[in-house]
Each structure stands twice: as C-alpha cells, then as structure tokens.
C-alpha cells in the first residue's frame, strides 16, 4: 500500500510538472543538483559543466513529462530519471569531438576557466540548434510581448486576467497575443 501511495505521489508530481508548478519544479531542481554535480566533478568536469549539463537534463525531463514519454514506475522514479539523463548527457559530452578537441589542444589542467566557459556555452541546449536560435530570438523580443506570452503559455494565466493587469479588454489582449506570436514567428523565420 505504501508503494502505491508513493507512485500516486509521483503521478501528482508529473501533473504538477505539466502545469509548470513553480514550487514542484524548484524542489525537483534543487534536491537533485548535488548528486549530478558530484558525478560530473568526479569525472573530469567543472562547475560550469555541471550546471549546464544538469539544466539541459532538467529541460529534457520536463519535455518528456509534457509529451507523456515518461511514466513513473517507482517511488523515486522521476528523480532517478533526471539523474540518469544527466549522467548520459555527461558521458556523451566526454565522448564528443568537442571535448576531445579540447583535450588534444590543451593538455589536462592547463585549460583556462574562460575557455571552459566558452566550451560549455556551445553545448546543445534542447532539441537542437533551431530551438536554441528561436529562444535567443524570443529573449531579444520587447518586454511587453515576452511577458504576455510567458504569462499565457508558461504560467497558464487566463487571457482575462492578463487583460486586466494590462488595463485593456480581453479582445484587445487576445489580439496583442496574436500579434506577438506573429512577430515571434517572423523573427524566427528571418533572423536579423
């Protein structure tokens, strides 16, 4: 019975993740970072590596949960899943040409911290370069569009409430959201 309760709790976590519940996401993130960091530091990694790989893994887990690609089987399923993905991503990175190139050019221990920073920035963020580009385009957008789109799509606020905080009626807010989406689309399609 205890196990069943634990699995039910996992399903609740899954639901909360799908809803971008800030409290649950934050707890999941903070509770599991140290273990991943320890693994990466013990295996030739640095602190910036640990952060990047962990965040990349976290986003991958979040995406898979949203797409119903992850179904919990045990009480600590999601935590274990996150650790496993981070571990795999680190292994992939160690095998990558990017990492091997660094090693061959600079003998171990003489790589400066700046170079490590720039290396980690080149790590693939999410589902490939396209999404990364689109995200930077989005981040460069005007604040009003950014806020509106994040409130609607990420925080899942109602159009009505968004309209109220902007001091406009709901129809205008919907229109504004539409124009922001059009703008984002245009910028993603034709960068610069």
């Amino acid at each position, binding site marked *: 019975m205890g196990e069943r309760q634990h699995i039910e709790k996992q399903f609740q976590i899954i639901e909360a993740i799908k809803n971008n519940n800030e409290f649950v996401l934050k707890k999941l993130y903070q509770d599991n970072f140290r273990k991943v960091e320890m693994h990466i530091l013990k295996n030739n990694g640095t*602190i910036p590596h640990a952060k990047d790989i962990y965040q990349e893994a976290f986003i991958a887990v979040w995406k898979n949960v949203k797409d119903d690609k992850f179904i919990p089987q045990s009480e600590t399923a999601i935590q274990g899943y996150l650790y496993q993905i981070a571990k795999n991503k680190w292994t992939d990175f160690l095998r990558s040409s990017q990492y091997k190139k660094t090693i061959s050019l600079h003998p171990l221990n003489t790589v400066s911290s700046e170079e490590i920073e720039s290396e980690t920035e080149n790590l693939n963020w999410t589902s490939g370069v396209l999404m990364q580009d689109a995200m930077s385009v989005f981040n460069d957008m005007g604040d009003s569009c950014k806020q509106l789109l994040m409130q609607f799509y990420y925080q899942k606020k109602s159009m009505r409430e968004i309209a109220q905080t902007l001091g406009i009626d709901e129809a205008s807010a919907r229109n504004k959201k539409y124009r922001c989406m059009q703008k984002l689309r245009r910028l993603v399609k034709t960068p610069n």
Partner: protein
Amino acid sequence: MDTQHTFTIEQLETIERYLDHTMDAGEKVQFEAQLAKDTSLQEKVAEIRFLIETVETAALKSKLERFHESIKDSKASLIDAPKRTLIRRRSKSSIYAIAAILVVAFGVLYIMNAETSSEKLFAKHFIPDPGLPTTMSNTSNFDFYDAMVNYKRAEYDLAIAKWEKLLREKPQNDSLQYFLGVSYLAKGNGSLAEEYLQKLSNQPNSIFTNDAIFYRALALLKSGKAEQATQLLKANPSERNAKLLLDIK
C-alpha cells in the same frame, strides 16, 4: 514567401486548444479529420507547437537560473573550481544577497505600512471554499471537475483558465461563476472576484447564493470598499456574516 502561410487569430486559438487538450470530443474529431488531409494546416500546427515550446522553454530556462542561484554554496561545489572565479562569484553573490535582503526588508516595511485594516480583515476571514468532491464516475462534467482538482491544489490560474473556457459555453452557470469568483479571491484579485460573485445575486435559488454573498463581502474588503461590504452584510444577515460585520466595525 512564408508570410502567405501565416496563421489567423482563429487558427492560432483553435490550434492552441488542440495542443493543450481542451477541445471537446466533437471538435477534436472534426479537427483531426481536417488535419489528416490538409498539409498546410499540419504545417501550422507544427509551427505553433514549436513557437509555444520556444516560449515555454525560454521561460523555464530563466526560472532555472533563479533556482540555481538559490542553491547554497556547499563544499561539494568547491572541489576543482579555479580560485579566482570562485572568489569573484562569491563576493558577487553576497552583494546580491545583501541587495535581496534590503529589497525584501523595504518591501515588508512598505507592505506593512500600506496594509489597510480591511486587508487585515480579509486575511483573517478568508479561507477558500473547500470545493466540490471530485469523483471519477461523473464523466459528463469531466472538464468542470478536472479544473476542480486544480482548484483544490491551489493551482488557481489553471482552474480559472479551464473554467473560463466552460463559462463561454454556459455563461449563466452558477457553479462556474461561484468558483471563478472564489479562485480570483484566493489569488488576491478582489475586483474580478467581485465581478463573478456579483452575478450570483441574480440567482437567489442557487445553492451558492449565501456563500457568494460572504465571499463578495470579502472581495469588496480586499478592494478597499469597506462601506459597500458593510451594506451587503447588513442586508443579508447570517451568523458568519455577522461575525465579519462585527470585525469591520
């Protein structure tokens, strides 16, 4: 070239409903049938899905930065970092910490000064309605109870978004009006709460009428309209209303 394939506002909202699974069964069947044969629609769905994912992922990533900042330094993180960056990072974060503490301190002071007596009354008396029991048997009202689960988990934004969609189809539904009002109130939005709860005054036979009056009084208090709240409570005597009235005076 691409601009001619752009989506209209109606298409955007339809596709949004499709992607977040809020289409009803009939609309979904129809939409999927159209989707199967219309390649330009398929492209639009893929495109909008991608754009929404971009927004959500960018929002999450900025959250992750904040989650990360609040992980405290521990020995584990000091193992092999170059010393210079460590010192720089630490002193920076302590400046941020001091700044954050100052901001919070001033914020608290400001709020404490700004908090009116009616705000305090609101905080004392407001307990969200426990909500309706959600059983799995009643499938006809699935959407309503689905949102009720969010409501009980205090995920008010989600509950509101789902119920407001339902309200468009059933604008006179008293359960929707009532729980939307209480949800907004739980989020601290007095004016929208008042707007929804007000609608129940036209439905004296609703089981929510009395509760709605009490919460509406609280909504008025929340918006600083103590005078109107008093009048409303006086006009509708009950034990609970009397207690609140006593505190207002």
